[in-house]
Structures are given as C-alpha cells and as structure tokens.
C-alpha cells in the first residue's frame, strides 16, 4: 500500500483530539490532587489546633487542681502545692511544644510569668501549710494570680476554638468547591469529547455518504460521475482512487463497447464458440438473418446452423477451416456462405473458435445469372443448329427428293413408253429409274440423319421408336423403350434435347458398353419429365472418363449441357462391370 502525505488525515485528527482529551484529563487529575493536598493540609492544622486545645485543657485542668487544693482544702501543704505547680509546669512545657500560634504563645508566656510569680512567691514565703493565718494574704494573692492565669488560658482556648472553627469552615467550603470544580471539569470534558467525537464521526460519515452516493449513481448508469471531497484525508484518497477506478472502468468499458459495436455491426455472420464448437456468442447479422436469438443458440453445437456438418481439419496455425457452406435459418431459409474458422488461443492452447461466414448469395446469383445466360445461349445455339439442320433436311427431303421424283416422272412420261419395245433401252431406263430411286432413298436417309422429321411431326416417342427400329434393330443389343403417362407432347425444344441425348446415349452403348440389354424409359410426372437410360454393359469409372475415352467424355459433356440448359438434373452411375445408368429430370411448365 502507498504512503500518503496528508495535511489533514483522519488518523492525525483523531490523534490530536485524543491527545487534547488526555491533557485535559491530566489537568483535571492534577487539580484534584492539589485540592486534596490543600484539604489534607487544612485537616492537619485542625488536628494541631485540637492538640493545642487538648494541651491547654490539660494545663487548665492542672491549674484547676492546684486552685482546688489551695482554695478549697483546709490546709494545703507546701509540698502539695509544689507538686501541683510542677504538674502545671509540665503541662506548660507540653503546651509550649504544641502551641504554634504566636499570639497564643505570647498569651502563654504571660501565663507562664503569672505561674512563675506564683511559684516564686510560694517558695519564698510559704514554709509549711497555707492554712495558717499568716498565709491568708497569700491565699488571696494566689487566687487572683490563678484567676488571671485562668483568664489567659481561657483566651487561648477561645482563640484556638476560633481557629478550629475557622479551619473547619474553610475545609468544608473548600471540599464542596473542589468537588464541584472537578465534577464540572469532568462533565465539561465528557461533553466536549462527545461533541468533538460526534462532529468527527459525522464528517467521516458525510464523506462516506458522498462516496456511497457516487457508487450508487455509477451503478445506476451515470458513468460520468466524479466524487469531490473538501478535505485532504484518507477518504479523499479513497475518492480519488474511486474516480481513477471509474475512469479506468470507463475507458475499458468504452473500448469494450467500441469493439462490441464493431462486432455487432459487421455484415458477415460471426459466431464465437468454445473449443467443442458450442456457441458462445453471435453478432447481429446472425440474429437478423437467421432469426435466432442468443438464448436459442447458446451452448448449442454450431452444426445446428449448417446444412452439412462442418468437417474441420487443422490447416494452418490459426485458420483451421475455409470452405463454402450453407447456413440454415430458423425458418429453414438457406444462405450460401463462404466460411472461415479461426482458433482463439490462450497461451498456445485453443480455447475456442471464431467462425466467420460471408454471404455469397449475390455472387451465386450472378453466377446463376451468367449460367442462365449461358444456358439460354446454349438453347438458342442448339435451337439454331436444329433449325438449320431441319431446313437442310427439308431441303434435301422435299427439294432434292422432289426434283429426283420429277426426273423419275419425266423418264416415266417421256421415255418409258417410247422405248417400250426396245429391250436394251427398256433395261437402261429401268436401271436409271432404280438409281434415281436409290438417290431418293439416300436423300431421305441423309435428311433423317440430320433431323428426324418424325420428331417434329409426331413427337419424341415416335421418333425414338423409329430411331431404334431403323438404326439399332440388328445391332445385337436388346433395346427396350417405354413411355409412361407421356401421351401429350411436351415443349418441342425439350423433346429435341431428349432425342439428342437418347441418340448420344445409344451411340455410346453400341460403341463402348458391350451390353446385352438396354432400357430407355420416359416417365412424365406432374412437373417434370424423367428420362432413364441403363445398360448391363462393362461400365466405366465416371471420374476417369476424360482420360479414358475422350470421345465418350465429349458425348457425356454435351448430354449434361443439354440437361443443364433446361435447369434439369443429370445423374450418371457407372462402375467397372456394373453397367451404366443415366437419370435425367427436366422440369416442364
């Protein structure tokens, strides 16, 4: 992950905030410690004051004992008084140690002076017991001194009490105040932390929300969306990354769209398959021209679309197949195409294939048109040839024949009777007439070989029958000829073509087949005329025909051409020693 240099990162902000809270916390703790210290100090002073008070009370008590012993007893002895005094002095020493207050010390020193005056007086003036009359004076004196001392002590007690009261008062006031302060500060801190934290989270939330809205908008299709954030923090980095990501997606998506658009717009049929030739995707040309949608074709084998199964052999590295085929649409329309199949390779392994089929209907149409023109020309040529033959045949048959007949008549009229009695001339005239007869027969034969006039006058059936009768009666092959449902004649041009085919086929059978039997059948169906010619001869291999016997090749070629000229179908089956079979269908209107 990258390191970002951010001015205002969330982590630094968080750190700063927490740091401030810790500092304030420390301050609060310190304050409470200080307060605690002050309060302890104050309570120590109170304790000291109590000790003072206690000591002063002790002192007052010892003084009271002394006072009672002197003033209340009948005869206080000197030793008793000294004992009491010593007791007082001990207490004074204790007080002196404890009392700290200067003013009280002064008062105590006054008290000490009084007591010292009393003890001096006692040691100097008193010998035995005070209850002597002579000591009455001292008794009063001592009373007043004690009384004075008592006053001092009371003053100290009063002052100490006053001080204690002051301390207690201060202590309780300080205690409440410090509590309030600490609570107040803590509350303030909690409150401030809460406000700050809330603001902090809200700010992050706002930014996350912007990111979220941006993402949602993108999902909804607003592909131009860009996210803007105010702060230079991690979320800003996230936003920038998001923007960059969208840009990348957009560029890649756009290029994908772009290629998809090209893929879809291509006029040729494009089919993408997996490696088993199951269809993965198709372009618009396939959808539009074959009326299939992707759902119908998805995962189906590509052969579903073709008339014949693709016979795929790997040729080059990528181009694996290239040939003409026929596509079959959903509603059984046929589209002739030239297809090429290329392998899709990933790391040198074939993962699928791209099959491109180019519509060649137009090309075929043109070829068909050309073929039709050629066919028409061929028909016209054949027709012209037949016409010319017919003309010559008629000319010979009718013209030449008639002239020969006329010569015959002339001889008959002019010479026959005249030389009736001359044996030599009669013989000559007879020979001449025989020669003329022969010439007439010969002219008829020539005419018949050119074109059977019978075909024109009586139709194919008669003409073929006649052909077999006159030309092949004694050829050694039994030729059967039969027609079925062919009472009504068909187009004269078709009849001529079929006649020529039969003539050609018979000529081949006689010359090459060595057959014993041959069948010629003409069967008329509703919309076509079917001619079948077969023999039981030696047969031949149709594929080697052109090399084997050129003449027969030309014969077959002209047969086929005549059939194709009428959009017919020509089938030839033959094999060595299997005979030969020719099946011809010609459509009739």
């Amino acid at each position, binding site marked *: 992950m990258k390191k970002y240099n951010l001015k205002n990162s969330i982590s630094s902000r968080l750190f700063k905030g927490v740091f401030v809270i810790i500092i304030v916390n420390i301050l609060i703790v310190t304050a409470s410690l200080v307060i605690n210290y002050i309060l302890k100090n104050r309570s120590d002073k109170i304790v000291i004051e109590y000790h003072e008070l206690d000591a002063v009370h002790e002192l007052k008590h010892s003084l009271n004992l002394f006072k009672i012993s002197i003033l209340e007893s009948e005869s206080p002895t000197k030793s008793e008084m000294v004992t009491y005094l010593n007791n007082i002095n001990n207490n004074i020493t204790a007080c002196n140690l404890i009392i700290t207050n200067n003013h009280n010390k002064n008062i105590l020193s006054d008290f000490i002076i009084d007591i010292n005056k009393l003890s001096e007086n006692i040691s100097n003036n008193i010998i035995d017991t005070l209850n002597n009359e002579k000591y009455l004076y001292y008794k009063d004196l001592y009373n007043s001194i004690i009384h004075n001392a008592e006053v001092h002590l009371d003053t100290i007690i009063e002052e100490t009490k006053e001080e204690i009261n002051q301390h207690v008062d201060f202590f309780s006031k300080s205690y409440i105040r410090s509590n309030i302060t600490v609570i107040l500060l803590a509350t303030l801190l909690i409150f401030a932390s809460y406000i700050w934290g809330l603001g902090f989270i809200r700010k992050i939330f706002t930014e996350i929300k912007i990111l979220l809205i941006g993402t949602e908008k993108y999902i909804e299709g607003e592909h131009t969306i860009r996210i803007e954030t105010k702060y230079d923090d991690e979320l800003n980095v996230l936003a920038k990354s998001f923007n960059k990501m969208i840009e990348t997606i957009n560029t890649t998506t756009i290029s994908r769209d772009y290629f998809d658009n090209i893929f879809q717009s291509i006029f040729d049929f494009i089919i993408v398959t997996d490696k088993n030739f199951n269809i993965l995707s198709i372009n618009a040309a396939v959808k539009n021209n074959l009326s299939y949608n992707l759902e119908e074709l998805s995962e189906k084998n590509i052969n579903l679309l073709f008339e014949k199964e693709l016979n795929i052999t790997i040729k080059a590295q990528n181009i694996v197949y290239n040939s003409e085929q026929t596509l079959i649409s959903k509603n059984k329309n046929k589209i002739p195409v030239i297809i090429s199949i290329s392998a899709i390779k990933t790391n040198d392994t074939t993962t699928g294939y791209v099959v491109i089929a180019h519509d060649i209907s137009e090309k075929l149409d043109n070829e068909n048109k050309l073929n039709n023109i050629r066919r028409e020309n061929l028909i016209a040529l054949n027709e012209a040839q037949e016409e010319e033959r017919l003309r010559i045949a008629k000319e010979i048959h009718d013209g030449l024949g008639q002239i020969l007949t006329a010569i015959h008549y002339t001889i008959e*009229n002019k010479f026959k009777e005249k030389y009736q009695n001359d044996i030599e001339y009669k013989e000559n005239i007879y020979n001449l007439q025989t020669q003329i007869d022969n010439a007439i027969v010969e002219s*008829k034969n020539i005419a018949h070989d050119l074109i059977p006039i019978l075909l024109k006058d009586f139709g194919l059936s008669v003409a073929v029958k006649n052909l077999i009768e006159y030309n092949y009666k004694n050829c050694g092959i039994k030729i059967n000829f039969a027609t*079925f*449902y062919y009472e009504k004649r068909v187009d004269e041009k078709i009849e001529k073509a079929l006649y020529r085919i039969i003539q050609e086929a018979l000529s081949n059978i006689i010359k090459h087949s060595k057959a014993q039997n041959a069948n010629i059948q003409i*069967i008329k169906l509703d919309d076509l005329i079917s001619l*079948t010619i077969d023999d039981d001869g030696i047969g031949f291999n149709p594929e080697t025909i052109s090399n084997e016997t050129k003449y027969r090749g030309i014969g077959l070629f002209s047969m086929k051409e005549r059939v194709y000229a009428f959009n017919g*179908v020509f089938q030839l089956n033959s094999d060595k020693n299997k005979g030969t079979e020719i099946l011809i269908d010609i459509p009739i209107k």
Partner: protein
Amino acid sequence: MQKIKILLADDHFIITDGIIAMLSQHKEYVIVGEARDGEETLTKVKELAPDILIVDISMPKINGIDVVKKIREKDSTIKILALTQHDKSEYIMQMLKAGADGYLLKNSNKDELITALKAISEGNKYFGKKISDIILNNYVSQSDFKDEKSDKTEILLTKREIEIIKLIVKDKSNQEIADNLNISLRTVETHRRNIMQKLNVKTVVALVRYALNNNITSL
C-alpha cells in the same frame, strides 16, 4: 362417259407437272385444279368439288394429314389419294386414320398411279406393295410389343427398379437402399419416385401390394 375430276395438291410444280403429264394420255381423268398449300387445297376442294384429291403430306400452312382430316369432317364421298415421299409407318397410319383412300409413294411409276386412281375411284382402298409391307410390319411389331407386355408383368420394370422395390418391401430406408446398392441417395429417390409414377401408386403400402401381386418379390 363422265370424266373423273382430279384436284392436285402439291407445293412443287415439277411434281404436279409430272403428274399432269402422266395423266395426259388417260382421257377419263381431268385435272380441274392445282393447290400449292393446305389452305388453298381446302378452298379449292369446296369450290371445284373434285371426285379425287391427290394430296402431298409436306405442304405449307396446313399439312396433308390435317387437310384430309378437315375434309373428312364434312365430306365422306370425295376420294383421297396421298401421294408423298414419306415412307414411315407413322405418316401412313396417320393418313389412313385421317381418312385417305389410297397411299402412294411419289417414286411409284405411272402404271401404279393409274391403278391406284382406278381402285379408289371405284370405292376401293389402294396401297402399293411397299406401303402394304410397311403397314404389315407396323402391325406385326405392335402386336409383338403387346404380346411381350401381357406375357410378363403388365408394366415393364428395369433390373434396377426391381432391386429397389425388393429393398423397399424389406422396409429399408432410402439411405439404406443407397448404401446397399452403392448409389447416391438422390438416385434412390429418383428411382423411387419414378417407380411410384410408373405403377401409379401413391403409398409404399400400395407399392408393396403391387410387388407381391405381381411376384416381383415375396415376403
């Protein structure tokens, strides 16, 4: 004696001239007119009402056979002699069917012509020897053909067709038949269609029935 009126119908002058010359010595015949094509022949027959019409077959506009047919539609008394170079039986038979009384080849000699005219004018038929032979041959070959037909199955089936019928009876598909006979599927389909048409059957059941009834195959 009343002369016999003859109308000559032939598009060749040399022929009509020759006939006229041949008949010139025979005074019982008179040539009343000549026609050069079929139409003219019909009008002249109507106009001139000849006793005998000598007519050629190959004529412009309407051929001789059709002319005879048309005349015979109305007139059965006129005698018609076909004088033509056609020696094919079809022409002869067609001409006789149309109603000609005689048929003579043009290269017949004068005596034959006179004999023919005499015969038909007396109400007889006349054909020369040659024509008689042709008619006889035609009759014989036709009866030959008929014999052959009635002898075997009524409809001639080729060896190949019988092979296919046998396989159809065995309930083989077209493809199986093609494989069996080593021919293409299309050839089988063509044969099958032709067989059905030849036998005039519409269903395989009818085809099988035909095959069994005619002993082409057995189950």
